[in-house]
């Protein structure tokens, strides 16, 4: 790795049968990211279960409960690196009841690898995974047509699957899609090209992961700076220091820039951009910094600094898509908490308009809301939020819903 190694987060989606765990195992193995002791442990287990070859999918089975049941029950994170990039894989289970886990892992991903079995083509679950990827706004999509060895590496079959998939994805407004034919079991077109897919001219999966352009995955134009913490050292050395600490969620800021503090609306100018490593002239998303302003205005956690050229919405009512995560269904008569950027406010669901069937994309009106449901809702909050449309800005368009009685996180929301 060098001083210019970037970080890419991606997830894989597909059922156990699609060879998802094998694909991850193969990526780790062929990029030499599996350790000997891990390999030894899974070799032993494979042998115990009477398997002929080492089952690479065992690498991603984390917990005792899962190993006993032979299924993945939660999101696990894996790490590997090449000289160009460090990768974080969010490994999610393919079982239907775990939609919430895919949404969870997808929320931080730059890219999703959607697996299909070349013999079976685009299935209901492929559509479901693609819909969820579009809902959560994953910037880059890879359709991995796996098990090409089982269809004699037929180009026509690959083209047929891709055409069907791209037509479906276009309906969802998805365009950054790369289709790759591969065999995770044999290793073709993951790290090495193999010699059976010479008709395919595109990148291997690893080449794509290493080269996909991610600088614009965050919004680089609309400055958004939620204040996390106010630093007032009140020491002799820093007796009048007031620094507003936070992370730039979108855009950039320079010394001298005029900023507006929302929801209040007061304006000021950036006096200094302070970091431990020295002051900066300009800072960019997603840097964590400290800002000092030229004016003394009352600012606290939950306020957001923006610039006048593209203003967010400030409102107490908004609409959103919700993914319900809790085993306890939504109760419209109860108040919940919304945590959005660094603000937390009481909220009410004023209406639940429809539920999306993630398999058919049909809308059902007046639904009840249970775990794994995706619904469109209208929400009222006790104090105003400062937000953007989720599709324009992930960081200022997302929120979680917390049940005050249990303190559990019960829903994920995307403002529409």
């Amino acid at each position, binding site marked *: 790795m060098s*001083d210019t*190694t*970037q*970080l890419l987060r991606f997830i894989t989606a597909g059922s156990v049968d699609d060879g998802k765990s094998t694909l991850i195992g193969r990526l780790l193995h062929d990029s030499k990211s599996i*350790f*000997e*002791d*891990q390999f030894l*442990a899974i070799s032993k287990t494979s042998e115990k279960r009477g398997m002929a070859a080492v089952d690479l999918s065992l690498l991603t089975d*984390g*917990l*005792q409960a899962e*190993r006993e049941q032979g299924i993945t*029950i*939660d999101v*696990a*994170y*894996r*790490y590997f*690196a090449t000289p160009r*990039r*460090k990768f*974080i894989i969010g490994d999610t289970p393919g079982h239907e009841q775990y939609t*919430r*886990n895919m949404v*969870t892992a997808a*929320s*931080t991903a730059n890219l999703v690898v959607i697996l299909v079995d070349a013999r079976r083509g685009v299935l209901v679950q492929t559509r479901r995974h693609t819909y969820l990827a579009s809902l959560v706004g994953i910037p880059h999509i890879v359709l991995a047509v796996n098990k090409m060895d089982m269809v004699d590496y037929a180009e026509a079959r690959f083209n047929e699957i891709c055409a069907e998939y791209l037509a479906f994805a276009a309906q969802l407004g998805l365009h950054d899609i790369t289709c790759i034919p591969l065999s995770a079991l044999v290793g073709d077109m993951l790290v090495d090209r193999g010699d059976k897919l010479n008709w395919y001219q595109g990148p291997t999966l690893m080449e794509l992961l290493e080269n996909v352009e991610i600088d614009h995955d965050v919004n680089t134009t609309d400055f958004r700076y939620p204040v*996390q*913490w106010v*630093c*007032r*050292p009140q*020491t002799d*050395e*820093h007796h009048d*220091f007031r*620094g507003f*600490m*936070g992370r730039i969620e979108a855009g*950039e800021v320079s010394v001298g820039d005029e900023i507006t503090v929302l929801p209040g609306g007061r304006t000021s100018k950036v006096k200094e951009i*302070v970091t*431990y*490593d020295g002051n900066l002239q300009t800072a*960019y998303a997603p*840097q*964590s910094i400290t800002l000092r302003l030229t004016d003394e205005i009352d600012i606290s956690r939950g306020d957001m600094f923006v610039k006048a050229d593209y203003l967010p919405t400030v409102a107490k009512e908004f609409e959103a898509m919700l993914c319900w*995560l809790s085993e306890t269904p939504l109760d419209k008569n109860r108040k919940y908490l919304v*945590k959005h*950027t*660094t603000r937390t406010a009481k909220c009410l669901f004023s209406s639940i308009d429809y539920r999306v069937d993630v398999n058919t994309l049909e809308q059902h009106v007046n639904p009840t809301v249970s775990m794994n449901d995706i619904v469109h809702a209208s929400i009222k909050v006790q104090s105003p939020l400062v937000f953007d449309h989720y599709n324009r800005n*992930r*960081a200022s368009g*997302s929120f*979680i819903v*917390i049940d005050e009685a249990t*303190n*559990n*996180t019960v829903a*994920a929301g995307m403002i529409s």
Partner: protein
Amino acid sequence: MSNHIFTHLDALESESIHIMREVAAECKNPALLFSGGKDSIVMLRLAEKAFRPCKFPFPLVHIDTEHNFPEVIQTRDKLAADLGERLIVRSLEGSIAKGTIVIKNPDLPRNPYQSVTLLETIEEFGFDACMGGARRDEEKARAKERIFSFRDEFGQWDPKNQRPELWDIYNTRVHQGENIRVFPISNWTELDIWQYIGRENLHIPSIYYAHEREVIRRGDSVIPVSDLVQPKPGEKVEVLSVRFRTVGDVTCTAPVESTASNVDEIIAETATTRITERGATRMDDQTSDASMELRKKEGYF
């Protein structure tokens, strides 16, 4: 981003700072667990980056097994003093004196008992959040743990009942008596840690670098000879060039054979190493495939 390259270390650093600031802002009485080991030294630098020129809005806490490497304790005390931050040390000996820890075999590692003293310390000071330097790449159970990991009043982790964690919006809420463990460097790997130590020029205890040491071979491990570990009949003491990849209880932390005597050499060695950090060096995690999971369920961090 013109002329600005945001590297993986920049991304990890910014994420960790963001997490620490969320803890400071939302938790009533947080603490940062600090042992003097390399990961917790990285945590201190991240805390400086998060909060300077302010003081840390939390104390440093060390749960001391008293099975220590002296260099590590010296580093712990010096760093806390240099930073001018408050260091709270609570020892397993205190729990033993109170009778809440009963040592069955004095020769065995004390790591399993750390949970008891940690929970007592949490209760004594009323901490509602403890930040620790654990990483997801260390072990299978950790790979599935949230960054904000909720614990019940017995300090237990329930892997099947974790709060979903989306985007970087963290749910920090707990009821009275409950607490959360927070892992700001969850997404760092061993290699990232060493690259960061190099980039930030951090001072770490000398035992992380290659040195000559008297060791005994037991099974696949080399074990350092100390006051607590003496050769059994038939065992031979050898002098090897070794370094430690992790530092814990002196009776169960094994070094690896190495000649890497500076950060660059360690980075080169780490980038090509074929054994996991815990697999190579922690005998307490080799006992069974699920050792860490079981310890965490009991309240270990």
